[in-house]
């Protein structure tokens, strides 16, 4: 695209992000501050994920971008378009084909391998923000591995509601050292982060933080002895399109207004339907 650098960002920006990504990978779960740049899409709409993707991407990459698990979401398409306009990389909807997957709020259902990198869009990098608004204080808590405030919060959840009420953004402990916010992925996806074959990069553009989980790293959701972490329960519901009972489903309505449930990972759902001849 005329007038713009390859992958939109100038080399200084890319270099800074690249240096920070390397440090993030060296200290799993720790939030590295970086000087996030203005992007032509609004803050809160994926600028962090975008900056990481643009710093990683090269000619031989294949990019998949999803939002809520869907490749066809307007925002995902907008991001894909921007990347393609400034790089000309191959785009795909097939999880297996992608080398870089930028995602908002989901991990694709299919297994990812050692050659794949998943880039998460993060609105709130700080897992302690729920219990402490000040960055200075939360930084000190991470420095001292003092996570008592969040444990207290979880305990109060149980006392008040009978269980931990974190839906998405469930706090996890990485490498036995850092409390981390896995971004607003559902609890369903949390177990995928533990001991994964793939590299996970997380980036918050507005909050200006980047962090990482290297492959084969311990990632443990916080839980009590008697109140264990559990994933969402779909009560035996299946996907109305592909019949799946082992994927994350979301409630929807059909043309007649009846309640149906659908796979959030639309391309996997399509793939299964194709393979089953549905």
């Amino acid at each position, binding site marked *: 695209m005329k007038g713009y*650098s390859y992958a939109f960002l100038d080399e200084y920006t890319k*270099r800074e992000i*690249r240096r*920070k990504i390397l440090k993030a*990978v060296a*200290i799993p779960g720790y939030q590295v501050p970086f000087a996030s740049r203005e992007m032509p899409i609004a803050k809160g709409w994926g600028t962090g994920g975008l900056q990481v993707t643009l710093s990683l991407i090269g000619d031989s990459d294949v990019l998949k971008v999803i939002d809520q698990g869907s490749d066809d979401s307007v925002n995902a398409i907008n991001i894909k378009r921007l990347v393609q306009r400034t790089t000309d990389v191959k785009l795909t909807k097939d999880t297996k084909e992608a080398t870089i997957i930028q995602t908002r709020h989901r991990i694709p259902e299919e297994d990812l391998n050692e050659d794949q990198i998943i880039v998460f869009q993060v609105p709130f990098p700080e897992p302690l923000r729920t219990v402490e608004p000040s960055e200075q204080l939360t930084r000190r808590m991470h420095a001292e591995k003092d996570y008592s405030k969040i444990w207290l919060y979880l305990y109060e959840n149980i006392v008040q509601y009978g269980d931990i009420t974190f839906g998405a953004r469930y706090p996890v402990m990485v490498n036995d050292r850092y409390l981390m916010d896995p971004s607003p992925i559902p609890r369903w996806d949390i177990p995928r982060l533990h001991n994964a074959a793939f590299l996970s990069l997380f980036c918050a553009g507005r909050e200006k933080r980047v962090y990482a989980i290297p492959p*084969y790293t311990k990632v443990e959701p916080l839980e009590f002895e008697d109140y264990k972490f559990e994933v969402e329960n779909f009560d035996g519901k299946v996907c109305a399109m592909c019949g799946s009972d082992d994927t994350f489903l979301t409630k929807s309505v059909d043309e007649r207004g009846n309640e149906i449930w659908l796979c959030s990972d639309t391309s996997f759902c399509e793939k299964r339907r194709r393979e089953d001849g549905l």
Partner: protein
Amino acid sequence: MISIFDAQLVFRKVLDAMARPGKVAKLPDIPLNPPAENKYPFLILFTLLDHEVGFEVLGAKNNAEEISRYIASNTGSSESSLENADFVLIYGGSSGGRIHEMKQGTLEYPDESVTLIYDVERIGTGMLLMISGPGIRAERKVAIEGIEEEEIRDMVRVNSEFPLGVDAIFSDRCGNILAMPRSTKVRW
């Protein structure tokens, strides 16, 4: 200088190495003419350095100044004191104990620490190390020719108080690299 496309390729290899400690990655054979035998450490430096960070060179017997000038003029980065350097290029497989002087970060900002680039003879033979930790499935065997045992001992010592520590990349004459971030446990 290297092209933006080459920088991207080199970065992806370095990232892969850092994310999977001990995995041997191969840098692309990009033409360079440094005042040193091994050009590959310079590919890494040219990819990551600019005027916002400082560097140092240790163990270059005859032409330390030439090497520094080569790095500075190609990246815009400048030589800084050892305790402020963000990147240190080490020849001879040893910092002579000076690793203890380098930036290890603070508890609040452990990322503000040095990245070491060791110019080594050969990766795949030599001193055997068993490493484990994030990025490694269980345990991995690593062999490096051209690194002093004392240096590994010092590195382990410096990295004993995670998250403080240093992150190291080893680069040999054939373009092989491997990395050991501070999260890696080493035994031998």
